[in-house]
């Protein structure tokens, strides 16, 4: 049986991006871990209902599965959110709004992608107006697979993200900052002239100081 564990061609881009972060993992100090421990207990979620997966966010947040017991509650605006949940396939039009919402969030911020559509295109693989791999446009911290993932799976994904934050590991927003050119080039490739306005990432023009 043909089984490949190595990436091929463009699939390796992701690993190249994450390589630079790998070395930082070792040096998470005491303060990082303490801050991470505090952060992990409170995640405000901006649930962007892009695809069918959005329907599973409601039982997660309400009485049946009650995500609030893990400190996970909905945020009314991107400004106050820590986690952006992309629930399913992303049309190009939506991608533009999602990028803008993501850039308005205050750091540290995380992205959770639900469903196979956000991982590899899923059943929309050959659609003319959806993107296939979300990770080419926004830095995803946690994938939750399934079509669509049930609330239990979402809770597990959130718990895994919380563990990751608790260890104080650098996360996606750093990757976004360091490889902004690559992300912006990818976004420009699919959005063309319709790029979102650039004042939401003006630190890019300020040479990364802002």
């Amino acid at each position, binding site marked *: 049986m043909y089984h490949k564990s190595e990436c091929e061609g463009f699939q390796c881009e992701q690993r190249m991006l994450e390589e630079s972060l790998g070395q930082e993992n070792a040096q998470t100090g005491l303060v990082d871990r303490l801050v991470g421990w505090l952060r992990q207990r*409170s995640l405000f979620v901006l649930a962007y209902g892009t695809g069918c997966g959005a329907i599973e966010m409601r039982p997660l947040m309400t009485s049946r599965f009650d995500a609030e017991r893990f400190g996970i509650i909905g945020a009314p605006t991107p400004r*106050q959110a820590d986690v952006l949940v992309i629930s399913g396939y992303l049309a190009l039009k939506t991608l533009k709004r999602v990028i803008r919402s993501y850039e308005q969030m205050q750091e540290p911020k995380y992205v959770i992608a639900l469903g196979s559509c956000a991982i590899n295109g899923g059943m929309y693989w050959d659609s003319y107006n959806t993107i296939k791999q979300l990770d080419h446009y926004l830095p995803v911290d946690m994938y939750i697979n399934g079509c669509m993932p049930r609330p239990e799976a979402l809770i597990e994904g959130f718990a895994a993200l919380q563990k990751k934050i608790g260890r104080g590991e650098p996360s996606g927003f750093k990757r976004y900052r360091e490889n902004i050119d690559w992300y912006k080039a990818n976004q420009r490739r699919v959005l063309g002239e319709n790029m979102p306005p650039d004042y939401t990432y003006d630190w890019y023009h300020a040479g990364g100081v802002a």
Partner: protein
Amino acid sequence: MHAIVDSLAMIGISYVMGFLFYGFYRQFNARVQRRWGPSLWQNFFDNMKFLLKTETLTHGPMFFLGPMIIAAGAITTVLFVPFLKDSDWLQGFSEHGNLILIIYLLVVGPLGNALAVGSSGNPFGVMGVTRGLTRLMGLEVPFFLGLALVMLQHETTSVHAIMAAQDGLAQWNLFTNPIAFIVILLPFIASQNASPFDVVGAPVEVYAGPRVEFGGRLLGLLMTQNMMMTVAKLVLVVDLFMGGAGNVPILILKAFSLFLLTASISLVFPRLKTEQTVDFFWKVPLGLGVLGVIATVWLPWGA
């Protein structure tokens, strides 16, 4: 030296009580909705997380000064409300102030809010502030009337003197002047931004209203001051109506029972519209307040 330690202790106590009370509120709320709810410490974690976030927004200087003004107003209010009766500690600067000063300090928050939100230019924020100021119009009048009733009853504006006048359970203003208590309680719930008067920050209608543009540290600061302000108001009502407290456990007990009362009221009533809120305030608490003034001032059995 004493003043500094005392002030820090008051600020610390009001913060700790604030997040524990709010944590309790969220858990209570969850149990009523038949779920487990977050831990008691959840509000502390939320607040710390926001204080540890970055703040990359720029909307001009007023946007940054607004939360500072609000927080300064809250801390000053905490320092002018005596937490304990007949004690050297937890007094802050309360012997230099009185009820009139506290009334003025209570308005600093909404003012700073309007300044900051106005400069952010977010339409939802402006909508929230408009709603807030409309509601303020409704709640201020009965609130001040209720305070005036208490001042009339004791013929003093000093919180210390009012506390001292309520020795035993029978002398509590809660029992000697129940009308004033009801007149104050309803605007008090509204000033805590609790349901049914929470139309200002409705999350899905106006996207958190005045707080729509705040994220990161400024939002953390706003949360902190909100918790401290709530405790300051609770302690003020405890001082005025429940005879104050001799030591910290009694204080927590009394403030907590008052909080439980307001929390239970706000759990079971759904949100009112802005104009319904103002209507309600100008009918029920204000009508009661006017009756109370007539009863205290003109009728023979009044003071």
